[in-house]
């Protein structure tokens, strides 16, 4: 095989996947970019009229957009922080137990198997004052508050997110923990490292790529949160719990502001590039 053949062979291998992505992601992306610069309604969806950057101006000066953007950002930061922290804690605490009882892993994974929209419906029942066990228990202790009312509402929504997705962070971090060589830890102990020293100087650096992956995936996913919030609060009261995804959905389908919705989605895409670059650096770090 010639050297040039060898050089191009890697492109040959990724060509099918690249082509597939180009068709499935490229076409919608190009269409969305066109719509974001166009005056378009459902009636004119096949003949959008280019109007320049007007929708981006509307989006970037819209209090509703920024309100939903900051709600999503805060929601994602808090949820990701606790998910990764709990995931790390669970992975380290349960590692010895999981060595012996692998079946436990299945139980830990259960929340991941539930569709988020179903999770929302489940909590609608659990938190209902008249039929919900959570409310009933609270009432037994004389606590008559609705956890879906201000000021508890955002905390409740974040908690639901954390309860469902912590197992994901746990799984990623646990797989990293499994791959740390026992020899390295043993050598450190022989050299006099304490448990804390082993954890801080060996375990954490070794897990950093896994933590980055978990944090990145969870941040992006939490930022895009839609299902359970929409089911539980509809984005309300007012706009109190309107995430960016709900804002985009409502703008697109309910307000028929297609250009604005797509421009907001483009802004969201650009925002995601920042943690993506940071995470990729962490993941590919030698």
């Amino acid at each position: 095989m010639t050297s040039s053949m060898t050089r191009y062979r890697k492109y040959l291998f990724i060509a099918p996947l690249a082509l597939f992505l180009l068709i499935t992601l490229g076409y919608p992306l190009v269409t969305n970019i066109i719509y974001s610069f166009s005056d378009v309604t459902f009636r004119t969806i096949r003949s959008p009229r280019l109007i320049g950057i007007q929708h981006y101006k509307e989006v970037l000066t819209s209090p509703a957009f920024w309100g939903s953007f900051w709600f999503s950002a805060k929601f994602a930061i808090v949820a990701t922080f606790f998910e990764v922290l709990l995931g790390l804690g669970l992975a380290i605490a349960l590692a010895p137990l999981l060595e012996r009882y692998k079946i436990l892993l299945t139980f830990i994974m259960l929340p991941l198997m539930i569709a988020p929209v179903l999770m929302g419906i489940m909590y609608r029942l659990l938190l209902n004052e008249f039929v919900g066990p959570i409310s009933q228990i609270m009432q037994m202790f004389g606590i008559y508050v609705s956890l879906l009312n201000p000021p508890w509402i955002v905390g409740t929504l974040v908690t639901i997110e954390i309860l469902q997705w912590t197992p994901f962070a746990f799984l990623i971090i646990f797989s990293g923990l499994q791959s740390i060589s026992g020899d390295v830890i043993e050598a450190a102990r022989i050299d006099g490292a304490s448990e804390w020293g082993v954890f801080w100087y060996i375990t954490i650096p070794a897990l950093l790529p896994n933590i980055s992956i978990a944090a990145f995936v969870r941040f992006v996913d939490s930022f895009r949160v839609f299902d359970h919030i929409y089911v539980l609060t509809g984005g309300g009261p007012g706009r109190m719990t309107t995430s960016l995804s709900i804002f985009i959905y409502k703008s697109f389908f309910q307000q028929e502001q297609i250009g604005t919705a797509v421009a907001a989605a483009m802004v969201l895409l650009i925002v995601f590039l920042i943690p993506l670059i940071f995470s990729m650096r962490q993941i590919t770090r030698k």
Partner: protein
Amino acid sequence: MKKSMGLFVALLLVTGVLWAGGQSEAEAGREKVTFLFWPGPESEAMQKVLDAYNADQGIKDNVEVEMLLFSRQGFYDKLLADMAAGSTEFDLNLVTTYSLGRYAPYLEPLDSYVTSDPGKTFIPATLNSLALDGKQYGVPTDVSLHFTIYRKDLMHRLLTDASWKSSYTAIAQKYLGKKLSPKDPAQWDWDDYLATTLFFTKSINPESPTTFGTVLQLKNLIFNIMIWQSTMVSNGGNWMDEAGNITINSPEAKRGLEIYQMIIDNKATPPGSLNYEFAESNEAFKAGQVASMLQWNAAYSTLTNPDDSPSVYDKIGVAPLPAGSLGHRTHVHSLGIGMNAASIHKAAAGKFVDYLFSDKAMEIYGRAGGSPPASMVLSSLADIRPEFPTVAEYLERYAYVVNGGTADYAVPVYEVMAEEFSAVWSGDQSIDTALAHTEQRMKESIHK
């Protein structure tokens, strides 16, 4: 043996070929019409209508109608995308009052396909609920309106117990500044509703057998605004006047919001109401913790079912929504059948539409579980649906569609109201601010 066996196989083959040929000939002779629907009780009931049509009138019309089911989740969003793309995969589809204007550009007006007078079968208000700019875009098949649902046992005692009466009058005086006496719920105006609600709230009246006087649905949801808006319309308010001027920022709308606000401020509705919709309100009522509520007619079947509502099923009373200065009013909207403008089988689909406009079709649909707004059908099905005569009466006497309620901006306007008013109900903004915002945003939605 071999010979007879061969003959038998040959006979089977010939029979099969002839049967298949006969089938395709019959099928080829009848034009296929595809009806896009969603799975659930409505499509199950509608399937009975299709079967009846295909077995009888369809043969005469040379038309066969088949159903194509989409999932209920996001049905209308997907439908809108399909219709906007000019899909010819279906000829008939679901339409609703509040999204009619949005679909109208992709719908075929039905007027030219109807051979009978629809007004003879359907209650006029429900025909209007699927009409736009003087054209009929849908056959109304399921109607939704509002009832005041109340506990008969509690209201009976309130009307007959002297100590309860005096306590009621004292509460009305204290909270409303008016000397009121208890009335039958059918005679209520909004003050009577408020006074009764406060009387049956334990934190106000420790003698009350229920914890809450009523249960409001306050979630940021367009259907909750549909219930609320009767507080405004019954007092003469509307989205806009006949000339198209937006009139939402009005004393009538303010009064409507104040009615709700008074209930919320006095904790006469459960604390979770801020995120309640249809199902949660029913649960509160079933738990025996609520004396009356403004609710969709669909709740009646559940609340009067002994298995679903064991503690209240035999205590359910129904009245019109409380009266304003114009009397009783109820929002009405319909689910119906429209025709895809891109259809390549319009004439055939039109024949089935014509059939749907008949009493016969609607009776089959009603008996199968639907709620068709046809006077004769609603009256004749009282044996299986006791609330139907009441539905017919309220539709005839009290039903309205707000000005602009079938326009293409209806859903955006409802969305704006749901957002702004739910912020009022959560204490996030004042009534005046919400009405000013709503007016401004309505202008933007309507004159986009």
